[in-house]
């Protein structure tokens, strides 16, 4: 805050140090329960990258995190804290499922899929619209309303999946299998003659990467993005500059919700082929860690998503390899990353700035 760090330190050193701290503390936890942290790390890395198909899984998880991370990051640009990625993704899933359930018996897959993708975005946006509207017009804080909306979404999905949408003749809370599925990457690879281990990785990752480019252009290259960033840095300045604050807040929340909603395509018509209860599995919250770690920048978010993808996939491996470590270890790491790179963001900044100042001054002449 006082002495801004050089860009490279801010973008590279700080996130890496925070990551290191998070892993150190997580390593302590592993040691505390009597296992070897180094071995746990090795297992995770192997599980994430080395075993056949593991890279596909890592990228599949990363796809989810790119969407939810972008969702949080876009809202951050307007200094809105959208904690509702979880609920928006769930409702996005509902949109996808509804479109598929209603249309896939009648329309060809190539038509249903674009509609389903659109539905994911629109439903997600819709679920963020109300918190945005309430913030813009009634001053109710999006943090609280989006938390509340997460629970309301969960309740809604329970009601629907145990009721109207439940697969006929079954008692598991999930829909019937959907027909309009996104092609899997390993299938595509095999079609062109490359052998690849099966994984749930599907073409959603391409859409995720396109979304990254889109967000970057939107935020840093368009007048709209300029207004959003102005609003995020100073609401009085935004008002002064003629930004329609309520409308901008609502639109930003809707974009954020749409991105979170898009996560549904990776799961519902990508990996699972049906809408199941709690399919969001906390990925919406992981988006917060991803956005913080990635400094709310698309490039950072892709990198952070890869990290978390690897953590999730490697974490699964942990529970196979150790009796005493569960994949919940990943949650611990995730919590620690949010703590260090989010809540304790200023902890390292000042000492590092002090460390770098003499050199920085020299560099300026």
């Amino acid at each position, binding site marked *: 805050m006082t002495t801004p760090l050089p860009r490279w330190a801010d973008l590279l050193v700080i996130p890496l140090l925070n990551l290191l701290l998070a892993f150190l503390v997580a390593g302590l936890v592993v040691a505390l329960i009597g296992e070897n942290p180094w071995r746990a790390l090795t297992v995770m890395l192997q599980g994430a990258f080395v075993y056949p198909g593991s890279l596909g899984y890592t990228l599949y998880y990363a796809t989810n995190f790119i969407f939810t991370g972008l969702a949080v990051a876009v809202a951050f640009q307007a200094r809105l804290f959208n904690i509702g990625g979880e609920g928006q993704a769930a409702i996005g899933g509902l949109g996808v499922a509804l479109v598929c359930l209603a249309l896939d018996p009648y329309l060809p897959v190539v038509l249903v899929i674009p509609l389903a993708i659109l539905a994911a975005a629109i439903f997600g946006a819709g679920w963020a619209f109300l918190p945005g509207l309430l913030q813009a017009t009634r001053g109710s804080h999006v943090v609280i309303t989006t938390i509340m909306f997460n629970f309301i979404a969960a309740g809604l999905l329970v009601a629907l999946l145990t009721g109207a949408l439940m697969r006929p003749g079954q008692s598991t809370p999930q829909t019937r299998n959907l027909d309009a599925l996104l092609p899997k990457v390993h299938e595509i690879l095999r079609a062109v003659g490359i052998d690849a281990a099966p994984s749930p990785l599907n073409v959603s990752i391409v859409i995720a990467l396109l979304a990254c480019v889109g967000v970057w252009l939107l935020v840093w290259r*368009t*007048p709209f993005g300029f*207004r959003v960033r*102005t609003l995020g840095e*100073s609401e009085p*300045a935004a008002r002064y*500059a*003629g930004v329609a604050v309520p409308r901008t807040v609502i639109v930003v929340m809707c974009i954020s919700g749409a991105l979170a909603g898009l996560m549904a395509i990776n799961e519902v018509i990508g990996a699972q082929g049906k809408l199941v209860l709690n399919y969001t599995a906390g990925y919406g919250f992981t988006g917060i860690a991803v956005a913080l770690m990635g400094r709310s920048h698309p490039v950072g978010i892709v990198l952070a998503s890869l990290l978390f993808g690897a953590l999730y996939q490697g974490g699964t491996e942990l529970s196979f390899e150790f009796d005493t470590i569960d994949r919940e270890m990943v949650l611990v790491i995730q919590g620690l990353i949010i703590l260090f790179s989010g809540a304790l963001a200023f902890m390292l900044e000042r000492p590092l700035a002090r460390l770098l100042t003499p050199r920085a001054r020299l560099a300026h002449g």
Partner: protein
Amino acid sequence: MSAPPAISLRGISKRFGAVQANDAVDLDVAEGTIHGIIGENGAGKSTLVSILSGHYGADAGEIALFGESVKLASSADAIARGIGMVHQHFMLVPNFTVLENLQLGFAKTRLLKAGRKDLLARIAAISSAYGLEVDPFAVVERLPVGLQQRVEIVKALIGGGRILILDEPTGVLTPDETDRLFESLGVLKAKGVTILLITHKLREVMAVTDNVSVMRRGKMVAHRQTAQTNREELAELMVGRAVRPVRNVSPSANGEVVLQVERLSVRDETGAERLREVSFDLRAGEILGVAGVAGNGQSELLAMLAGLMPPAAGTVRIGAREIGAASPSDPAEMRALGLAHVPEDRRREGLVLPFAMRENAVLGYLDEARARRPWMIDRTRMTGRCQALMDTFDVRPANPALRAAGFSGGNQQKLVLAREHGASPRILLVGQPTRGVDVGAIEFIHRQLLALREAGCAIILVSVELDEILALSDRIMAMNGGRIVGIVDAAEADRQSVGLMMAGVAHPLPTGTAEPVYRDEAIL
């Protein structure tokens, strides 16, 4: 003669990052006197008294009180030593009562009830001893500013108060309230209280102090007996060179009416009426100075005219456009109508501090940066525009890529003015143009405003610095409680008559016997 000074500072130094706020400052204040410390913005006055009140620790130096060397590690230390501080921004909990605010610092018991009677008695004692009446059960935020300040003084005295420090105490007061404050200070001095008065207003120093010390760029540059100095000398000491203030001397242009305000009322979000039936005209080529103590509706007037607040009743006419409660405007539309706005709070409104200067150069004027594809920003154009503005208004350093936060107040204000000037406005709203700005930049800004006026721009100038208003305006409009008390020609106005109007007294016709106009004091 032999009594040790109430306050004795030796070699006080304090550094904030790259800024040496205090550099080996020495100061002696005799007991039972009123001692003024003057200096420009950023001269280090506030840092010095913050050290004296225990808010900051000094990096080096010694403090002695009544001949005894002391360490002031915290506010609590200072209070225990009998130092009471009245801050520029009141340190009161607004939704607490006066009593609760005093209990905050001085309740000695665990239970509030137990010490209540005792504290009430002490408040009553202070009130009667110094003539500082306060209602202990009043909620602070409902008190007028003058009374809130009185609460602060009582608070400062109740701690034992042998030394009272006041930091810019008159900024929020009407001239009338200021007079009453100075009367109280006289009473306190007579009872043996030592008073340190921090200000940048020379008039106040001359009026009430016994001695005065001058600070410049963190250093103490001079000590004088007030009786043996004068404003000119003090001004020169403060600035470090002879001061040639800018004045509006050319006759008014008497141009066409460009803005007509009729029976305009404005309410804030809470529904409170901040402007009440305000009516006036603004002509091309004139500067209309709006005088008033902060919080009397001037800010709302600017905000409303800039399109930031909707009118509750009445109309504003600019050309063919009539703005009313049913047809409110917005900042974008007002800009399109040829109205530019230098806002009162440049750090919060006028600039986005973390943004680069080039981005700030198009704040509110995004069209200036639009590429041929209208949905994209042309960064080359944006940078070019910023460079041009920086060159014409001598903004230093002239690097569009640097963040606004790194520029001095004067250079920040120059960029804002340059940006608004660059829109070639027909009407310019200017709020507190020289707040937190050094003298060199003040001169520059004043000259630019007068040049704009010469070019036919109509300017509304809001400032809490009465001298600035007197020096630049063609007409002066005084506001009180959201109303216009009167509008007078600047040539017929003086500090006294405008001061009375600011206090809400309708304008008495200027008489030849009034105090001479200190227009030459503009920037001080």
